[in-house]
């Protein structure tokens, strides 16, 4: 209908044409009254009909896990007066009704070792009827059989994988590896599902511009149908401000006979390393053990010796040194007798 039509309707009401057409008003009134009486009369009659009955299952066996999907609605064939059917439909239009599995099966599923169980709904019509309005007679329930498929519950310990995305403020870095409050979690669920679970991931944790150690509680990614021994764990991201430094470290000599002197060119090496700001004052040349081995002088047949880094302070990382070999000169010590 276009705008001109609307205007005509508006004009019709404004001009009081309805008021003048008394015959129409009377006709509409009596049609309304007749409809109400017809409706009341209809509700007073008895009907056999099928109603939709939404269900939610409660009191399932605790020692097994259901693996199949159960019907969410039943079709109930009922006999009742129209008033009762209307009342039922209005009251249950948006609610699902509890279906007590334990009650209707007399807890046989829980006590049985069988994995599959079928419940014939005709067996429970009488029990089921009690849950309906007393004025509704239940004739039958569809589906006629409800199949329950179970899997035994097993436990499995799997490692936790942290999903952490981090970025740091300038010169801040990971001091140590990211650590978890615990490295694994115990899962409980049907073996059919647990067989293919090898690890559990944390929810993604995004930490930006870190400049100090961060501790966060992170949820573990849940897997449908599997219970977790815990839902959250604490993740620690150890952060330290790092710098890269260089230091000259004298080269020591191993296995040098007392009677000899070994002159090295150069006598020290440049060592570079990463160190946390808080500890950089503690680094000194004597904490690095950088050596050449006198015993290699004859083996190599050249005037060069390989330099080896035997140890360094535990709080420095990424240690490099240069050069990696030195030229040597052997001298006899002068004896002063």
């Amino acid at each position, binding site marked *: 209908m276009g705008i001109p039509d609307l205007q005509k309707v508006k004009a019709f009401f404004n001009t009081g044409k309805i008021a003048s057409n008394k015959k129409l008003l009377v006709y509409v009134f009596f049609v309304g009254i007749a409809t109400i009486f017809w409706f009341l009369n209809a509700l007073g009659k008895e009907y056999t009909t099928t109603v939709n009955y939404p269900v939610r299952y409660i009191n399932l066996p605790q020692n097994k896990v259901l693996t199949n999907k159960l019907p969410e609605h039943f079709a109930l064939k009922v006999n009742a007066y129209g008033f009762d059917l209307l009342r039922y439909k209005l009251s249950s239009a948006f609610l699902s009704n509890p279906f007590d599995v334990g009650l209707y099966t007399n807890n046989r599923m829980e006590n049985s070792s069988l994995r599959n169980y079928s419940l014939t709904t005709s067996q429970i019509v009488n029990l089921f009827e009690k849950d309906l309005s007393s004025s509704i007679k239940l004739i039958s329930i569809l589906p006629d059989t409800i199949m329950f498929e179970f899997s035994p519950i097993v436990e499995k310990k799997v490692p936790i994988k942290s*999903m*952490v*995305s*981090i*970025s*740091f403020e*300038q*010169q801040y*870095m*990971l001091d140590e590896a990211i650590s978890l409050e615990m490295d694994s979690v115990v899962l409980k669920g049907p073996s059919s599902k647990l067989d293919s679970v090898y690890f559990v991931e944390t929810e*993604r944790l*995004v930490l930006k511009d*870190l400049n100090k150690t961060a501790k966060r509680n992170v949820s573990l990614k849940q897997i449908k149908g599997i219970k977790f021994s815990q839902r959250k764990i604490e993740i620690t991201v150890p952060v330290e401000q*790092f*710098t*890269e430094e*260089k230091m000259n470290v004298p080269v020591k000599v191993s296995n040098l006979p007392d009677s000899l002197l070994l002159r090295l060119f150069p006598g020290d090496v*440049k060592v*570079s390393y*990463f160190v946390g700001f808080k500890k950089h004052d503690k680094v000194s040349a004597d904490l690095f053990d950088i050596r050449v081995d006198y015993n290699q002088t004859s083996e190599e047949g050249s005037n060069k010796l*390989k330099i*080896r880094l035997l140890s360094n302070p535990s709080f420095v*990382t*990424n240690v*490099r040194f*240069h*050069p*990696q*070999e030195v030229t040597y000169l052997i001298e006899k010590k002068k004896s002063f007798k």
Partner: protein
Amino acid sequence: MLKIGLTGGIGSGKSIVGKAFEMMGVPVYVADIEAKRLMVSNEEVRKLIISRFGHGIYDSNLNLNRKLLAEIVFNDSESLKAINSIVHPAVRADFKRWSNQYSQIAYVIQESAILFDTGLYRDFDKIITVTAEEEIRIQRVVDRDSAGREQIVERMRNQLSESERIARADFVIYNSTELILPQIDLIDKQIRFLASR
């Protein structure tokens, strides 16, 4: 999420740079280590290696006889091509799977010595190359692998030249006697900027 290739010639110090990126929270996939793992753990790869090199290449515990394999490929370029054609696609697929888990972060790195040599560089958004003076690189490998100098020089000759690698890279880290952290820090910032666009 950007995929960054980290490459460099033998002895350039790729690993130490990779470790530094890891300390900055960047996930690093070391292709060499993962290739070794796939050759043992990936059934498909194992089957292909056995079909090419025979059952003797694995022992009864499915451990790869690396010495035997190295001898075979060292003396036969066709065998080298064959093993590469088995392992490289597997590493490529594995890296793809691995990087998928980091889809929400700025970038991940694959460390590989042969990105340019194999054409794998096309899989990456940017390439970082690590370089150092030749003499320093030789000394590092002599010290690390206890290998002869001549042998190392020969291996270097078979690799892409440093100048070529530098020309083709987007970022260069100089790792002779320079400090590497300031260089890495700068590259990290630039890559994060690119990833945010």
